[in-house]
């Protein structure tokens, strides 16, 4: 369902993995985490800082922040205790050292000593997600994967939590793979962006280049369908015919061909392969740099 996806997350940078639901964002993220359902088959390697990630050290080198903070936290222990426990089991700290280190980790995400004694259900959604960020970064992973980490928060809190997430990654030296369907979040927080459609990575490159000057028809169409501050109010937005393919649905050619305004004959019969173009990687037969 996700096919031939290759990308780099540079050390210390933020890469946004974006696309509509069913595009394969979460599946890609979970493959990296080794959390795929048993019936899934995987192939390919994950290299972190030049060394392959083995199942044994995956848990230590890759951390995860899910959409639902409650699923990452134990309901029965105060959040401070949970972080101390993670420190003791991974870094072998003493009980006392772990406690003070956990306190510091929580302070760094804006959680007071009093709040660190609260159970997850006693905290607001935003506070809970802060606690998860502290938990995910406390053992200094190489890569942090956050899957729609702010979707359940209100708009004002979303940006604050994303900013904090990015700060904590920078401070601990972790790279961040931010899985998000929200292009504005990607725009303000990611160095690079990878746009997926139907299990394929359609366009990858520096965020501002991809979002300001998309080269593939899918990125172009996606951007055109979103109203921005410059869109005249109440005008009709650009839409695409049809719908995204359901996961597992296969086509002979490009998966986007049935909806693509630029499709040519070849698009319906031959699957495009990823290729480099300028500073991007694109998967499209027809995309080309405009000649000025």
């Amino acid at each position, binding site marked *: 369902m996700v096919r031939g996806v290759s990308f780099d997350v540079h050390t210390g940078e933020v890469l946004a993995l974006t696309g509509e639901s069913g595009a394969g964002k979460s599946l890609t993220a979970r493959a990296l985490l080794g959390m795929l359902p048993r019936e899934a088959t995987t192939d390919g390697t994950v290299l972190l800082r030049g060394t392959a990630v083995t199942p044994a050290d995956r848990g230590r080198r890759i951390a995860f922040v899910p959409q639902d903070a409650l699923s990452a936290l134990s309901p029965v222990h105060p959040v401070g205790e949970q972080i101390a426990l993670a420190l003791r089991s991974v870094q072998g700290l003493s009980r006392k050292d772990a406690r003070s280190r956990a306190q510091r980790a929580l302070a760094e995400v804006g959680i007071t000593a009093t709040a660190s004694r609260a159970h997850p259900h006693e905290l607001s959604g935003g506070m809970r997600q802060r606690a998860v960020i502290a938990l995910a970064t406390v053992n200094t992973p190489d890569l942090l994967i956050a899957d729609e980490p702010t979707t359940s928060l209100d*708009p004002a809190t979303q940006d604050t939590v994303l900013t904090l997430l990015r700060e904590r990654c920078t401070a601990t030296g972790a790279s961040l793979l931010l899985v998000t*369907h929200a292009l504005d979040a990607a725009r303000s927080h990611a160095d690079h962006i990878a746009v997926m459609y139907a299990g394929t990575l359609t366009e990858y490159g520096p965020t501002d280049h991809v979002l300001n000057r998309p080269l593939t028809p899918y990125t172009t169409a996606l951007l055109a369908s979103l*109203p921005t501050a410059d869109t005249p109010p109440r005008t009709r937005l650009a*839409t695409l015919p049809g719908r995204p393919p359901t996961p597992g649905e296969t086509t002979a050619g490009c998966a986007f061909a049935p909806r693509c305004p630029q499709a040519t004959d070849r698009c319906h019969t031959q699957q495009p392969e990823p290729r480099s173009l300028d500073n991007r990687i694109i998967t499209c037969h027809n995309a080309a740099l405009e000649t000025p």
Partner: protein
Amino acid sequence: MNPPVPATPLIVADSPAQPTPSAEPLAPPHAGPAGQPLLSVRDLVVRYGTTTAVDGVSFDIHAGETVGLVGPSGCGKSSTAAAVLQLRRPHSGEVRFDDVDLTALDERQLRPVRQRLQPVFQDPYGSLSPRRRIRDQIAEPLRLHGRWSHSAGPRRVAELLDMTGLNPALGSRFPHELSGGQCQRAGIARALANTPRLLILDEPISALDASLRAGILNLLLDLQDGLGLSYLFISHDITAVRHLSNRILTMRDGRLVR
């Protein structure tokens, strides 16, 4: 083949099964006096036990107008929507619709009002019954309000599907056989069945993908132009709210803020 669909689908053609209206204390179905708002909410308070979810909210919506309602989750948007719809009776305050205070009406008296004041909710699958065909669910409000007949009923269902951008042939499908966007369109088609004046849209695009959202926003704009509908549009997608609304209300902790 479906019979041809009239161009201005404003009125259900014939409705022989319509009962003679009982002595409902209601204004005529069309707008109140010029300048008078269609909906006028005053000092609305909604409580759940000791929690005050809506704390003295007042606003108007005029005919043909879209009013956006935004604010953080839990601030009371859905509770406001439910109280306007009288799905949850407010603790106090007035909800004047077509110049009738709905809070003073009992369930039976509310029935005819509900034709003209319809909700559209976020979860397109959750708001339709999974076990019934789309066409039967769109027909349901027509039957319920005595507007179904063997000749005009199916024609009206086809017309509603067509108006909401769905191929009438999809009427024979079940919700799980439709995409999320198609389901949301079917939900809107059902809300339109009895020619409402005001739609209360509570996060109607939040469950949809970017490429489908634009289609629903365009549909809402088209329906408003064609039918003169008013909308209360609740969404946390502030760009979508800005795009659609004539005025935007912001809510925080149960109150409107400026």
